[in-house]
């Protein structure tokens, strides 16, 4: 195995974002000492964990050329389901049962409609976004419930496992498994194939409907876990939790180089992209910039990233490959 220095054309799209992330950290560390304090860094990691967990699931769906807009609502739904469960059974069971139920219900609905029946993912998940948010309000009557989290749920969402923050551990486990799945298993290959060229994938014998369905089941699974993390973090379950978060998550995934048209992207990119968005928002807060501005900055960054990626491809012989493919 030779190591080849990545060139402009072969390096993954998220290298650019990683570079910006490092640059931002250096600049902030020099200008704002408080930024580089242990508690602030740990804060960045903790606050980016939930978006990253959602982003991991989102990456699967976007890789298949779909999208899952329901993740923010499902996060709230999962938290509220958990808040009911903890009163009924030991917390270990409650956590497992919540994850299982949410995955089954949400993954089942999204997956069946999109994968089996071939409906448009944007429309379907826009629908389930409304449905699960609505159910969360209905069940709680719009109120926030306190949850006695105990040590397990607290660890998942906020505490430490040994020296490592619990949320970070969740991210490491989920990202690690997903990186392996996408890179080295038949299912991972099928995900990229379905997003890259669905007809070709089908002709090659891939059950494309099932692959898509599984992507939404995985996304629901990740959203269920994110819901539990949120409860652990706040010791409460609110029907408003995660409202609008799906857009931040999509932005981070795209920032990390995953292509909205499917077939190209990586978990590494998603992790870096969302970490970068959190670092930016944290830096702006420390600088005393209003949170309204943070949304503007997120939008600008997303536009800049897509533009940059386009320029990079143009510069690095996209013209050549296009020329070739047109001629043959």
């Amino acid at each position, binding site marked *: 195995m030779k190591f080849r220095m990545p060139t402009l054309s072969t390096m993954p799209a998220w290298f650019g974002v990683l570079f910006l992330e490092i640059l931002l950290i250096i600049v902030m560390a020099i200008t704002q000492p408080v930024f580089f304090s242990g508690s602030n860094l740990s804060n960045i990691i903790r606050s980016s964990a939930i978006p990253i967990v959602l982003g991991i699931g989102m990456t699967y769906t976007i890789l298949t050329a779909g999208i899952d807009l329901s993740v923010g609502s499902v996060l709230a739904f999962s938290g509220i389901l958990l808040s009911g469960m903890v009163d009924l059974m030991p917390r270990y069971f409650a956590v497992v049962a919540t994850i299982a139920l949410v995955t089954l219900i949400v993954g089942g609905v999204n997956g069946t409609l999109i994968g089996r029946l071939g409906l448009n993912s944007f429309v379907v998940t826009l629908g389930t976004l409304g449905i699960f948010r609505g159910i969360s309000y209905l069940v709680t009557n719009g109120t926030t419930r306190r949850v006695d989290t105990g040590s397990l749920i607290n660890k998942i969402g906020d505490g430490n496992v040994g020296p490592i923050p619990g949320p970070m551990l969740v991210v490491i486990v989920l990202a690690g498994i997903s990186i392996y799945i996408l890179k080295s298993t038949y299912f991972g290959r099928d995900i990229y*194939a379905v997003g890259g060229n669905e007809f070709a994938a089908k002709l090659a014998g891939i059950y494309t409907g099932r692959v898509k369905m599984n992507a939404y089941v995985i996304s629901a699974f990740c959203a269920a876990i994110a819901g539990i993390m949120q409860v652990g973090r706040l010791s409460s379950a609110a029907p408003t939790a995660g409202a609008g978060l799906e857009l931040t998550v999509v932005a981070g995934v795209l920032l990390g180089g995953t292509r909205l048209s499917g077939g190209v992207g990586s978990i590494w990119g998603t992790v870096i992209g969302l970490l970068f968005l959190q670092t930016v928002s944290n830096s702006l807060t420390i600088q005393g910039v209003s949170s309204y501005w943070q949304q503007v900055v997120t939008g600008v960054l997303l536009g800049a990233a897509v533009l940059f990626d386009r320029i990079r491809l143009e510069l690095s012989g996209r*013209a050549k490959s296009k020329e070739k493919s047109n*001629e043959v």
Partner: protein
Amino acid sequence: MNAGVEMRHISKRFDAVQALSNVSLDLRPGEVHTVAGENGSGKSTLLKILGGVIRPDKGEILVAGATKEFHSVRDAMRYGVTMVSQELSLIPNLGIAENIFIGHNQSRNKFGIDWKDTDRRALEILERLNISVDPRREVSTLPQHEQQLVEIARALSFNAKVLLLDEPTSSLAPNEVEALFKVVRQLREDGVAVVLITHRMSEMLEISDRFTVLRDGKFIDTSDRSGIDENWLIERMVINKPKASARRNYSAVGKRPVLEVKGLSDRAGAYRDISFEVREGEIVGLAGLAGAGRTELVETLSGVRQRKAGSVFINGRKAGNNSRTALASGIALVPDDRREKSTIHEMSVRDNLMLSQHKFELKHRSKRNEERIVGNWIDKFSIKASGADALIKSLSGGNQQKVVIARCLQTNPKILILDEATRGVDLGAKAEIYEILRKLADEGLSILLVSSEISEIFEISDRILVMHAGELSANLDRSKTSEAEVVAAATGVK
């Protein structure tokens, strides 16, 4: 002083590839000028520069003797140069007249667009092209060759003086090619210069007045039609003439039918009541015009298209009717459109080649094992790739096609179906693919070859099936039939 358009000393570089170096081309009004060359010779690049799609690094373009800047397609059109590309660029859900005049020269009245006048002007142009269709008809409802004529009509609406046709015939059936050439001749009468790229030797010899040959991005020669022949062109296009490969031995052709199709009908009605069989080690050609239902038929056999009735047997056992189970029963298809239907562009050669290998989904894919298998195919088919992990899109068309064929063979098929397997593949790779198919048949594999090129069908088939308008119209023994008989069956002549 030249009244036409002239390109002088054009050079263009893409990264490491010098696509064109110092190429000149002059066009006279009222001529059909073929730019000939193998894939990668730079002919498409040359046309794109003239059409304003890409800009040259060096060189100049002269219109009626004066240097002009071609910055965009719009610039080119302003100087009377219009390109009809391989990919049709019409808007499928708009009408014919709307497509012709979209974005320019729209008839207006005080309420906005004057549709009556638009239709009238569209009809004028369509009449000039000898097509009689309702100008309000939606473009998506037209067959592909008529859509191409609409593109040409659009070009004429710009008062094109130079029309660039990049492989206009690659997806047309013989009768449609004839219709297109009739239009081209008409345009020549009208004083339009037509620049043509085609891979089919017989076509360029039939219609061209002049030839310019490119090889490896360099100008090789130019000549009038008179006094040159096929050999003149081949000598200049290729350095090593592909040797005519030997006819295969037929001893491997068995008696036993491997594939039996009985009374198959398409759910959407593209073909009806098709029955035939393919025997062990036999190469069966499936001829017919575009739209005869051949692609739909083979897509049904491979399980990606729904049938209404009928059954398919492999070695006497019922074959699966979705793509996975059909593959498992031994039916593998190399589809007609590589970009759209078979390769996954952003994936590596390895991923593309191993795409039909299915195991338990969460099973680990052994990289070393797969690389060994892919390496074997790369050697066996002399696939030119920088390695198993090179992106498939970095390969030339012929090599991509070899990867797709290898993908099919890796599933150990009982029958290999190829749909227009050599479309848009250069002469060298074409000969290699024929050689591969002959060898496979000699080893006992059954092959069904769909092709619109009669010469290809005759080159390698043992038996020839012909489809016409969704029905099987002939089943002929290659040694006892003639091209004329096949063409007659394909066009429905009794």
